[in-house]
């Protein structure tokens, strides 16, 4: 997958990703306010296939799944960060949004064109010609991502179990 990168710093929290004020709204409305308090034009200008790049502890804070869901809704293809808050990381993978751990995420600049292979754990920075090694996604989570997230994964599992029973 290839797209343009949007770069944020350390500790991007779930309150800026999914502001409490809009949590009662549907994802469409909520996503319009994603990251607005740190980058007001983000939701309007991000394009399907783009990447969101963070520093340390991306997604700190709440369990609200709308944080990764808003990014997915806006068409973000994958996240790249030095590290993630554990709860956010689980939520992103469960929604089928690849969250890639890359110690050198800080070398990516806003607007860089990237080619990202989540399973191989490899990023080509098409703008600088640099390639960045990432941590491969653990096998049990790679399977979840291949299924498209936890929902389709559960659908498969239930269909299998029901098949066995009938």
């Amino acid at each position, binding site marked *: 997958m290839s797209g343009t990168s949007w770069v944020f710093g350390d*500790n991007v*929290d779930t*309150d*800026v990703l999914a*502001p*409490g*004020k809009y*949590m*009662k*709204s549907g994802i469409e409305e909520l996503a319009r306010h994603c990251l*607005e*308090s*740190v980058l007001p034009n983000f939701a309007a200008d991000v394009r399907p296939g783009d990447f969101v790049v963070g520093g*340390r*502890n991306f997604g*700190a*804070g*709440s*369990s*609200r*799944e709308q944080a990764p869901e808003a990014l997915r809704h806006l068409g973000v293809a994958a996240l790249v960060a030095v*590290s993630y*808050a*554990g*709860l956010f*990381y*689980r*939520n992103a993978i*469960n*929604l089928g949004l690849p969250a890639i751990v890359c110690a050198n995420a800080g070398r990516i600049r806003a607007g860089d064109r990237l080619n990202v292979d989540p399973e191989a754990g490899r990023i080509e920075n098409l703008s600088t010609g640099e390639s960045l090694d990432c941590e491969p996604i*653990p096998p*049990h989570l790679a399977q979840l991502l291949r299924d498209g*997230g*936890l*929902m389709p994964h*559960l*659908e498969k599992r*239930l269909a299998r179990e029901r098949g066995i029973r009938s």
Partner: protein
Amino acid sequence: MPMNEAGSKAYATAQTLAQKIVARAAGKPAVTPGEIVICKLDLALMHDSGGPRRVKPLLEHLGARVWNPDRVVVVTDHYLPAHDDESRRIIEIARDWVRDAGVRNFYDGMGICHVVLPEKGHLRPGMFAVGGDSHSPTGGAFGAYMFGIGATEMLGVLVTGEIWLRVPQTILLEWTGRLADGIAAKDMMLAMCGKLGLDGGQYQAVQYSGETITALSMQERMTLCNMAPEVGAQTGLIAPDEVTRAWLEEAGVTKIDTSRWQGDPGAAVAAHHCFDAAALAPQVAAPHSPANAAPVAEHAGTRIDIAYIGACTGAKLEDMRMAARVLKGRRAASQVRLILAPASRRDQEIARAEGTLDAIIDAGASLLPTACGICAGYGANRLEENEVAITSTARNFKGRMGAASSRVYLGSAYTVAASAVAGHICDPREMLP
């Protein structure tokens, strides 16, 4: 997981409290940090925001039922009071869903889920539990391994009764010495946030230990575990003892086993940090991170518009008692809005009966419902543009409680109350009787 030589050797070695609880839930004699295990849930807690309104359509889509309704607890706390149509709809979904799903453990308007859960006797040492809220590690105060998950993962739990876990390492946070009067668990926690940073916990288990912890009441212990996510831990644990037992017995819990749920002496930990309680001053975390903690003197004199005593973190009975000690016979400064939203109905009723509530209200506080409210940026009372607040809550991320230009300082209920009286951030020790 195959038992290789290193694994079997590790199995013979001492286990932390976290490992023991996870091993039991995974049906294994022992577990090794880093190992991926599937654990069976003893309990799943949901609230109205992340709970029924999110999982109901997913369950319907799958045509699946709840694995065991008696292990599910639902509490309404985020969209109460339901001040508009959307909020009312969300609360109605919760009420309808528990009935349809056969969930009998439903607490509607009784307070904030993390405080109501133990009050109603649902927690006990050694449990393995999840909650659909990041502050779910509050249950760790009772020696339960409890952590927060999102809605889709909750769906997985509801359908299967299981969840995967990477067995955590334990980070030991040891406190020695005695807290001075006017210093609370909240000050300890903010000091730890300052030292460890927002990601110092590395999504592992932190365990609070030492004589200072042993001397804390249950509600103060809850404050520490509640904020384990603020240091980036998956959960926060305190080994159960006689204080735990006495509290739980009062909540109607029977067959409490405290001796089984202790870490083995010499169990390997990832890190061991030591803190001196006697040297601790009141702490205040400046905008926009709990990790921006410093002794109150660094921020003394900062003018405030709002003083908010609220949330599962900071408006339990004992937090209210702290505030009342400062506020009794005093008034909040005229330009400050002092707000109290008790963490649970039970705590509010006790506070009312003993005069604690009156002391706070007589100081000029407005009383809001026992719900999450401002802390989560929900409801009708959000912070306005450029407002400055000091709160007893857990998080002060940018815009969390309202306008992006608002600024939130975190402190103990003592510090919030004293600052309300002074009109600016101040050291509560100056105002204690």
